[in-house]
């Protein structure tokens, strides 16, 4: 019991640290496509560690099942919305600043305008 509580302190503090790092990243990083990575840190590591820390406190109850469901939904929905956001930004002509010159065939046909079956 005590070991679980100490583990939960560790997870909660680590999760808090990573979520603040992600927040700093979303402020510091230079342009939109980089900032998405800062948001990704808080969505995966911050949320995951905090929820795991709470799971350690919850014990094997229905509360733990709910926390697991929240974790599951966050891991499914956060990359989906991140992808939708990036795709939408690219469609609207937000040019990603690149440090490396991309190969000519790297960027696919510029996706101007919505196409059929585009599900974002």
């Amino acid at each position, binding site marked *: 019991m005590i070991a679980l509580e100490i583990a939960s302190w560790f997870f909660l503090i680590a999760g808090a640290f*990573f979520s603040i*790092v*992600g927040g*700093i*990243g979303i402020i*510091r*990083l*230079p342009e939109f*496509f*980089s900032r*998405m*990575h*800062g948001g*990704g*840190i808080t969505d*995966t*590591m911050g949320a*995951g560690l905090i929820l795991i820390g709470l799971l350690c406190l919850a014990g094997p109850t*229905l509360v733990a*099942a*709910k926390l697991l*469901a929240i974790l599951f939904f966050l*891991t*499914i929905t*956060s*990359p*989906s919305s*991140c*992808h939708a956001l*990036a*795709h939408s930004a*690219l469609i609207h002509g937000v040019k*990603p*600043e*690149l*440090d*490396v010159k*991309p190969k000519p*065939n*790297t*960027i*696919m*046909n510029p*996706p101007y305008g919505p196409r059929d079956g585009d599900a974002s």
Partner: protein
Amino acid sequence: MRYAFWLTVALIATWLLWSGHFDNPFLLGLGALSVLVSLYVSLRMKIVDEEGAPAQLGIRPFVFYAPWLAKEIVESNLAVAKIILSRKMKLKRNMITIRSHQKCELGRVILANSITLTPGTVSVQMEDDKILIHGLNLEETEEDMSGEMDERICRLEKSK
């Protein structure tokens, strides 16, 4: 039929777990009603197939794939956190295209979501079997970038 069965099981489990009432007949009746309604609606929408209710994957994504993905996420998280906290951010932003080798759409979606879930790489666009990736600090070449992920998901969907 198999997909509908497993969808029903998942819906019933969801209702029981989230409500937390196991002995109140009124609430159980409401649960049965809502399970039937959602089953009917999803059958009518024709989304009960290997994509909407991926019963063919079973429990393997959680047992074999999720732990490995969690390890990858932790590693790339540490890398990105180091970049953000360093005084002079050493960015090497790049966009590359990789090819996925999965057979069905579900495998490709899992691959793209896993790529986005690991910080430092975001899948921006998907076309047929090509995935355009924006990377914060990409050092790998296109081949070994997410090669293992691709292979693992292929194995996941192949073994039925």
